[in-house]
């Protein structure tokens, strides 16, 4: 049994390493920031960015096929690492560690078990702000992938597809090449025989390794 801890550790390590090659692009020219308005940080042709983020959400979970099934709330904490390729339209590769807590109790004296999971997903994003000429960057993203989950303190593993939808704003920081993003996010978990959907907030730190910050005037750098 003790030997079973190793594979999950390896999984995590491999997953982190898989993200590493894309970070090598940071050897491109350093970022340039400008002062000015807070909500206009991203330039056209941003090309590539990497982000780390934290998400907090409230999930509602149910077992649809069972009699007396109840929607019960669970809390989700997520730490994510993403690489983004593209500008106004683009793709993202995402890696997330999710921790879902126990639900509250139902009137039938049961609750839903929490779980920890490692999820990988592929996303598609569109900068609606730039596409529609808004004076700020407003981005929408949908992503889908899969997660390997485990009930805490057990060796019981399960698989599930995951989906996410997000709408986010970007906020300039005083540090060159760093941008904050705030998102409204809707995560979906689809394990066998149950379903979780939620809503939450996330905060991400976006690193733009090359000159990607649009000047406040709106001119290209």
């Amino acid at each position, binding site marked *: *049994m*003790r*030997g*079973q801890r*190793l*594979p*999950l550790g*390896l*999984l995590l390590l491999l997953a982190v390493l898989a993200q590493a090659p894309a970070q090598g692009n940071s050897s491109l020219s350093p970022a340039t920031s400008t002062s000015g308005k807070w909500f206009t940080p991203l330039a056209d042709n941003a090309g590539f960015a990497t982000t780390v983020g934290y998400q907090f959400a409230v999930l509602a*979970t149910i*077992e649809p*096929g*069972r*009699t*007396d099934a109840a929607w019960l709330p669970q809390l989700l904490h997520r730490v994510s690492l993403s690489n983004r390729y593209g500008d106004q339209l683009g793709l993202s590769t995402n890696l997330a560690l999710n921790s879902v807590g*126990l639900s*509250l*109790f*139902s*009137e*039938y*004296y*049961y*609750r*839903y*078990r929490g779980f920890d999971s490692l999820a990988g997903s592929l996303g598609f994003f569109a900068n609606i702000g730039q596409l529609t000429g808004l004076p700020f960057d407003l981005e929408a993203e949908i992503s889908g992938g899969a997660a*390997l989950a485990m*009930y805490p*303190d*057990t*060796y*019981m*593993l*399960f*698989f*599930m597809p995951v989906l996410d939808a997000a709408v986010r704003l970007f906020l300039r920081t005083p540090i060159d090449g760093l941008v904050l993003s705030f998102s409204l996010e809707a995560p979906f978990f689809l*394990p*066998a*025989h*149950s379903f979780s959907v939620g809503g939450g907030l996330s905060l991400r730190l976006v690193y733009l390794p090359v000159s990607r910050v649009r000047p406040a005037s709106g001119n290209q750098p």
Partner: protein
Amino acid sequence: MKAVNWPAPGQRAAGCSRVARLDHLAGLVSLALSLVLIACAFPQPKILGTAIVFGASDYTLFKDLPATMADAIAMDALLTEQGWDSRLIVNTEATAARLKAELASLTGNTQPVLFYYAGHGYIEPEETFLVPVDASPFVDNLRPNLISSRDLHGWLVEYDIRHPILILDSCYSGGFAPGGVAYDGIPADYNPWVTPSEDTPAFSQVGALLAGAFQAWLGADNGSGAVVLAAAGPPELSWEENTASSLPYAGHGIFTWFLLAAATDPLADRDGDGFVSTVEAYLYTRTKLDEEWNKLHSRSSDPELVYLPRQSGGLRDYLLFSQP
């Protein structure tokens, strides 16, 4: 504790910053109260349900099990004390027909129904069985009076038992605990001193875990939906301690002894909410049995002495005990 200097009348108009801080404090208190009220809107846990407690000790054709009677009586007393409507059925009454009749009497029951069983178990390559006291040796594979996993889960579905909990202290009882949505990473035959699992390459273990989890998702059968706590894995034996022993669990099944202890040991209540759930009971019994019984027998020449409890892999976690 620091004294709080409440503002004098009129002080607020002067724009005292301390008053502003108190306003913030009041806001936080209001927020906290609101959260408490929201939490109270959800049902509060209360232990209530029906328990069927089987103790099969005096067998007609199998070896007697002296400790199962004591286990059943102790479990019945505990469940009754906890607020369960417990029905104790032992010895000549502990038959397959009686269990079926008891479940039938609970048809459509909307409360949790707990079935506890202490007795012999039996296994065939494709099926696991409980062995009631009137069970006979196999005759032409008819398995008279045995209760198979398929039978038991089938009765739960047939009688519309919506919230079934099975706690089985018998050999091979893990065969009644389907993984369902989950793949149990514990080998079916748990024995770290004999099984050379650590010699298996790590990537091979990762592959097996991933494949197992994916297959569980593809082919998950929700079955009766029962939450199952089993004393041992599908190929493992479950043990009881001789009454003459000086060990604390003398005269009891080892698994049941630790399960009974979970009702009062604060360590069992892992989330500190004052209740012990099926998941918490499983984790407690697994930990205790491994730390005490397995450790004691780790150097035994008989590898069958080592075993671990198992749990079904479903999402639900039922309340079992309320701690003092």
